[in-house]
């Protein structure tokens, strides 16, 4: 009996692309989007594929959805190979790609769903009932959007409709590529809650990509950290945080980026290594991971004031997934 859920084995994908060197000249360059990734997703869990832009998340989803063929390796959906049995795979998956398009603009949400439903072999009264049910589930009915044409939909409505289409044939496996990217908070929350429910109640297996650490932490049972086509760590959010156990974060808020850069330079020369910089509105956050923040704080403050740098706000925090990511990749931003 073949294994259920999603099984990914040593997937490798390279793209060759042209680097433009002027008006006519160009050079072919090979981009290694996936460098042999392997993982499993079981029924009843949401697994997050978390990584920055260009990490290879969409490439992974496309291969699992049979829209792209790997250069080597294979993946199995409910036991079917995405390379050798793409038709069987397609019967088991619901897919959400970019949320801003993907429907017929002149058709209403309901008509769009009915069209795609028919392409999945649903028909007659069952189709009608199912479409109503799903429109209600994703909250498009309460927004009064079911009978409006797609062209007029907000991004939040589009994302909801896209999830609705993925759920229409009630597939056991969901492949969701950044389903909440750019959405308004209520839509994003609705989608996360729905996904969670589908996993708890129906035991679906969900692969959920995101670059949002906060989101990954609240929705995923397990997280795979992906960077430059490699899975650099995996585990539950709590397990991942253990990778930086013993460390806590000192967060300094500063007014200007120049000041932040100066501070980072000073800290670097004084032997602090785990430093990251994140912009937050007007302010710039500088985060330093240390083992004993209470003690280090005074040292850091002394360093800053002796160089005449003004600090607006100071806090000590438990490490977040972001810190894990920075710790593992060495990324500074």
């Amino acid at each position, binding site marked *: 009996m073949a294994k259920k859920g999603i099984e990914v084995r040593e997937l490798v994908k390279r*793209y060759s692309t042209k680097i433009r060197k002027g008006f006519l000249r160009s050079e072919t360059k090979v981009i290694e989007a996936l460098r042999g990734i392997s993982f499993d997703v079981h029924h009843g869990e949401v697994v997050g594929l978390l990584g920055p832009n260009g990490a290879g998340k969409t490439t992974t989803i496309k291969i699992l959805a049979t*829209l792209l*063929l790997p250069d080597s390796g294979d993946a199995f959906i409910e036991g079917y190979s995405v390379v050798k049995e793409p038709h069987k795979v397609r019967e088991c998956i619901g897919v959400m790609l*970019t949320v801003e398009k*993907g*429907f017929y603009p002149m058709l209403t949400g309901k*008509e769009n769903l009915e069209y795609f439903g*028919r*392409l*999945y072999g649903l028909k007659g009264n069952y189709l009608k009932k199912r479409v109503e049910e799903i429109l209600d589930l994703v909250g498009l009915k309460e927004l009064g959007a079911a009978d409006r044409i797609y062209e007029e939909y907000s991004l939040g409505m589009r994302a909801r409709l896209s999830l609705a289409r993925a759920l229409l044939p009630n597939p056991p496996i969901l492949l969701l590529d950044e389903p909440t990217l750019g959405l308004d908070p209520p839509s994003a929350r609705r989608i996360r809650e729905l996904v969670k429910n589908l996993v708890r109640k129906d035991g679906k297996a969900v692969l959920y990509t995101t670059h949002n650490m906060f989101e990954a932490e609240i929705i995923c049972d397990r997280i795979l950290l992906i960077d430059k086509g490699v899975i650099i760590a995996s585990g539950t959010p709590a397990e991942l945080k253990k990778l930086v156990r013993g460390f806590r974060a000192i967060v300094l808020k500063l007014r200007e980026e120049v000041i932040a850069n100066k501070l980072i330079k000073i800290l670097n020369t004084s032997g602090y290594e785990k430093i990251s910089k994140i912009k937050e509105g007007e302010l710039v956050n500088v985060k330093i991971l240390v083992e004993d923040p209470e003690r280090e704080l005074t040292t850091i403050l002394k360093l800053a004031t002796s160089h005449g740098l003004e600090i607006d706000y100071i806090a000590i925090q438990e490490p977040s997934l972001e810190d894990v990511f920075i710790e593992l990749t060495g990324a500074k931003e």
Partner: protein
Amino acid sequence: MKPSFIDLVVAEFKNFFIEFLRRKSLIIALVMYPYLLTALIMFIGTMFGSLEYFKQKIPADPLLFFLASSLTLLISLVIIDDIGARFIWEERMGTLPYLMLIPTSTAKLILASPIPRLALTSCWVIAVLAPTAIVIKGVGAGLAVVLTCLIATLGALCFVGLALIIGGLLILSRGEWSIYWVIRPLILFISGIFYPTALMPIWLRILSMTLPLSYAIEASRMLIAFENPEMRLILINVTLMTALAILYTPLGLKTYAYLEVRTKKLGGLRI
């Protein structure tokens, strides 16, 4: 659940008619289409030579000759556009990947997709052109128009294989959509829509013999434009056209499948 071919056709019908009724420009375009095209074809046709020269070479009424051409063109454009250009639209709308995700081959859906427009266009062309022919040439000509439409529809269906290959090339070429606007008029010209193949240089004539559309045009012209059409010749044309279709359709399906796999290997499908 796997959809049957009928399911796909039903889906396409609903999609097409909703959109059609909702876009006023589409309705106007359909109403104007036969008139505009007939005028255009007559214009292009007369540009290549005088009507006198035409009459020496081809023993037919030029007006009816061009009428037959436009009718066949109208109907065959449906196939070229619905299969070829469909990829362009679907990619722009972002629906193409989702169509490739349905649990049956994409080619099957593509084969189903032109049927609604083909049906509507054929009916409309008959409704417009049959009365015109009756007024000009009498009831016999009207009947010929109806028959011609049926042949043209068959001819359009015979075009499916080639259209699939064009569609496959379009997705593989990743953004080189403009090729399509070159291929399209080229095919139409070679098959003798604008200008009779009999008046073309020999190499073009040989090329035109490989296109099923050429036979449809030939047959429909004989039917409509000549006083006493020779049924035997018409039948030969229809048979040749069908034979080519039997050859091209599986070839088109195979080639399309190959091109789709190539696209997926290269990562060309844009989302």
